[in-house]
Every structure is written in C-alpha cells, then in structure tokens.
C-alpha cells in the first residue's frame, strides 16, 4: 500500500494514513509504524474521524443479515447425512 515509512520527521500525511487504517486495525504494523500512525491520529481530527468511519462501516457490515442456503437444500443435505450412516 503505502511504501514510505516515517521518513520525513513529520511522519505520515493524511493521504497516506487513509491507506493504512486496515493494517492498523489488523495489528499488522511494526511498532514504529504504529507509533507514527497514532501520533498522527492524536493531532489530526480528520484522520481520527476517518478511522472511526472505517470502524463504523465494518461494524455495520456485521449487522447485515448473511445469505443462507434455501430450506430445500438443507433438507436434501440432511437426507444425505442420514444416508451416510446406512451402508
């Protein structure tokens, strides 16, 4: 995603931060990257809000009802499961 680490002393720009939030939330950053990102979030309300929006988006997705297989397929599978016991 973003190749530049915290090379400039000022760290990530907002444009870079928005590409790093998933890595951050998944705990996939090095300690240095993580600190640089958190320092940025600490002074930048825009990026802190963006991160919150991503969190909200992910948690709202968890409220979407998952697709389920139709009942007749379940029935057919149950029959196959029973048949498995019979030689």
């Amino acid at each position: 995603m973003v190749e530049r680490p915290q090379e400039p002393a000022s760290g990530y720009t907002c444009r870079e931060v928005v590409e790093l939030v998933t890595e951050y939330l998944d705990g996939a950053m090095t300690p240095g990257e993580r600190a640089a990102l958190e320092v940025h979030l600490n002074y930048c309300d825009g990026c802190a809000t963006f991160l919150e929006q991503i969190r909200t988006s992910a948690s709202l997705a968890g409220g979407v009802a998952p697709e389920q297989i139709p009942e007749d397929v379940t029935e057919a599978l149950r029959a196959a499961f029973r048949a498995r016991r019979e030689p």
Partner: protein
Amino acid sequence: MIGSVEGTGVVSADASLVARLRDGDERAFDEVVSGFSPAMLAVARGYVGARSVAEEVVQEAWLGVLRGLDRFEGRSTLRTWVLRIVANIARDRAVREARSLPFSPSDFEGNDPAVDVRRFRLQTEPYPGGWRSFPSDWRLLPETQVAGRETLDAVREAIAALPDAQRMVVTLRDVLGCPAEEVCEALDLTPGNQRVLLHRARARVRAHLERHFDG
C-alpha cells in the same frame, strides 16, 4: 465461531463437533450447516457469481464434506477445511464456465485510493497530502439513523456492488466475523493481499455510507 487453531493439533471445540458428526448426530449437522453455509455461499459467489449456481456449489461441497469427514485430521479448523472444499469446487466450476477467477493480479495492483485524491492538498500547497476539509463525524448523527434499516440497506448495496474478490473478503471478515488467518487459509491468500482486498472493500463501503449520510 468454532474453536481456534492451536499449532497443528486438533482444535478442541472442533474435535467434539467432528466426533458428533461422525456419530451421525443430526443436531450437530444442522448446527454446522446453518453455521457454515453463509460463509460457504460467500466464497462460492465470489467464483461463480449467480446465487443459484453458488447454492449448487455449496450443496456439492457439503456432499464432499460428508464423504471426507472420516479423513478430516484437524490440521485446520473444521470451518476452514470446509471453506477450502467450497473454494476448490467453485473454482473448478468457474473454470468450466470460462468465468474470470477472482484474485488475479489485477485485484491487487493499480492505484485504487481509499479516498478521492481531490480531497487532499496538492504537493504545491501548504500541508501537502492533508485533508482539504475533514470528513464528518458520524457519532454526531442520531443513533437511530446510523444503525437504522436504511443504513444497513446502504451497506448491503455497497457490498453487493464490490468486485468479486473484495466482496468475498469483506463478507467473510466483516459480515461473518471470520478471522484474517482463516480467510487467508481458506482462499490461499497472503496476509498482505487479504488486507489489500479488505481495505479496498471497506473504503468503498465507507464512501458509499458517506454519500448516504451526507447526501
């Protein structure tokens, strides 16, 4: 969610479930069918597209699971093992139908910014790469609006419109709550590639919600 992988040993919660299935316990079977099928459908649809075809794939996969149950060694969780079976069957089906497969290099390459680049300051401006104006704080919206039915419809719409690979990953991760490691193992994705897809998917869902909330 069932169990977690401990090294390569049999997962304890899984072990008793597998034992019940091998014993022919129908309630255990109902439990896994209703528990795993949504994730299986998500995987199948990522390869074959149409819901009806995906249902056939899931059914075929379950029959494969029943045939293979005695060979299951618990090297992964039961669900991961089942998802790998679905992915294989779905991939074969997609190949037979000459559909393009998800996880091609084009799914990971290229520049697909999470946020429209015009929302950031140019290199020639003060604070290059900074926001022109901050995104709005959804925590200030009424709770009923944020978690309301229309919002969930918007999320569903946004997910449905995603490219196959992104839709598959975000459905497994965020809709169904599968851990990253399981998604990687089930779909043969590297952690980095899994994250690229999840990130792009979440970014698009966020952008869709932003239009939904901000009008």
